């Protein structure tokens, strides 16, 4: 499936999750997106899944304490300045579940976008703002390169007996990493110019015609948004 059709489906899933009113509907959406995400390689998907899971859990835990909703308390706690009396009601728990599922659905949709879509084809298919499009593609590629450079930098220091532990020591690596990235950026710019980047007679790989499945995916995206707005 072309990335544009897949992106439309993911965007529709996010829209449906934001428009839906029932926790169960949003939970089903989140589970469907989770099933999509687990198709990505394990070592690449775990930061996204753990990040999404922790964020959703944090929202579920915090929401009952900052929301004032319902009249069926399950637990009543002390009075805290600014927040007032802490309590957890049946309705607040339901609301927290709903918000957590929503956040999980949005996070998982982004994870699917980052992990599974071919950004080259997606951005090349945009057909406008080619320099910006290329900048986004390069930025996407920069992430794993930076990750590797950071690992090599830490290894280089450990190889000299210098352990990189704690926030302060790790923060001190940002500047050399940035300097290294600038060096790489210069080298890349030179290589791009040598490969003809910037010429006015540029052409592009032709996009294949839309298939029936891709058309169906687009239609499905529209239906999903409508479902989210009216019935879910």
């Amino acid at each position: 499936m072309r990335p544009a059709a897949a992106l439309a489906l993911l965007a529709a899933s996010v829209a449906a999750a934001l428009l839906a009113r029932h926790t169960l509907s949003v939970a089903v959406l989140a589970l469907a997106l989770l099933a999509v995400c687990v198709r990505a390689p394990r070592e690449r998907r775990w930061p996204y899944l753990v990040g999404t899971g922790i964020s959703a859990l944090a929202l579920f835990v915090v929401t009952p304490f900052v929301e004032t909703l319902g009249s069926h308390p399950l637990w009543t706690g002390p009075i805290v300045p600014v927040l007032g009396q802490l309590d957890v009601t049946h309705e607040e728990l339901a609301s927290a579940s709903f918000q957590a599922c929503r956040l999980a659905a949005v996070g998982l949709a982004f994870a699917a976008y980052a992990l599974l879509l071919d950004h080259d084809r997606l951005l090349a298919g945009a057909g406008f703002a080619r320099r910006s499009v290329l900048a986004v593609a390069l930025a996407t590629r920069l992430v794993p390169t930076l990750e590797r450079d950071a690992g090599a930098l830490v290894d280089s220091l450990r190889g000299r007996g210098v352990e990189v532990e704690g926030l302060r020591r790790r923060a001190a690596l940002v500047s050399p990493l940035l300097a290294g990235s600038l060096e790489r950026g210069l080298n890349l710019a030179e290589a791009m110019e040598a490969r003809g980047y910037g010429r006015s007679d540029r052409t592009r790989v032709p996009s294949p015609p839309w298939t029936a499945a891709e058309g169906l995916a687009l239609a499905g995206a529209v239906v999903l948004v409508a479902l989210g707005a009216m019935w879910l």
Partner: protein
Amino acid sequence: MALARVERLTFAYPGAECALRDVSLEIDAGEIVLVLGASGSGKSTLLRALAGLVPHFHGGRFEGRVEIDRRDTRTTRPSALAGTVATLFQDPEDQVVATRVTREVAFGLENVGTPPREIVPRALHALATVGAAHLADRPVEELSGGELQRVCLASTLALEPTLLLLDEPTSQLDPDGAEGLLELAISSGAAVVLSEQRPERALPVATRVVFLEAGRVVLDAPVSRAREWLSSHRPLWTAEPSRGTQRSGELGSTVCRLDGVSFAYRPGQPVVERFDLELRRGEVVVLAGPNGSGKSTIAKLATGLLDPTDGIVVRTGRASLLLQDPGRYVVRDRADEEVALGVGGDLPRARSALGSLGLTGKEARHPRDLSSGERERLALASVLVTEPDLLVLDEPTRGVDPERKRELATRLRAQAPGRATLVVTHDRVFAASVADRVVSLESGSDPEGLTLVGAAHG
């Protein structure tokens, strides 16, 4: 009519000494020109001048003239020369634009205005030509260094250039990979200008040799005459693998022992399997093998940067590891502070280490402002200053010219009695000059594990 003509070219980068001085040469179609010279002699600058990147991309002072296919590079931008000229740079990581292999190869074809319907077929054909057709749909981030360099070569060959510029393209490859890559480049039919630090790889395929020294051409001759000249004037550049002065005394105690060590970065995909190695004080052991056979992983296991998934590593005393391409990984703003990192900020000790490697007077310089050779010595000082009982060097001769290799070998031999030394390299000449013993990894994927086939010399 020559394909490329360089006339009395003198060039200096902004704020720097001349990198090229009064260089004149002509390159005809079909020639394979090998450019040799020490680090900083102007090899890369000459290639950049032929690509038009000097002066357009770098700026600087440019005198003389360079013509490519009758086009003056002073008035023709490098992007306009692309297609006629194609360049393969040393580090593939620094030239990859796209996230997928086919798109990467297509990038140059799109830029030079290839008819849209021809782009993908030509990209796939180029990948097939370099034996990388199976990589067509792979993300570039999953490729090994050798695979990525092949993809980059495919990107240049896809343009069907008449002049192919190769700037130390084999520095990261094992001998077989390097030989294969050079053969592919040469069989393209384009005139090739190849810069190399390992002449033993390139001399057999070259038709002509240009030797640069301090930016000047001191030799421009057919390869047979060049061999004679090199033998009599620069013998290190034609050195065959031969043993240097190896250990004479008895070996000391065991400093590091790997017993049945296995390691996998991903479950079920072991990189090292049931590997045994003993390193004793006083010996220099070379670990050789093809790309991907697990050499660097063993270096990290030996120094404790990685813990084995199976087996045990026993180590006594301090271990230090110098990684590949160490010049990239500098942390501090001053050379002496960079070296002092490993000894708790002891600046006098760091300055002494810098001095022992010929870097006196460079203490206050920013490490990134040092030349590539000086950066390498700085990196070496950073590990030697810790006075390790086990010193491990991972590909220390990558991009290093023969003269500096000899210096390094001499230094390692001189300091060998005080420690155990493990050198990971596929540089046969260097290995022969420094090793007491060679351990060769035949295959990282062999279910029998890593086979010890190297003879124990000495």
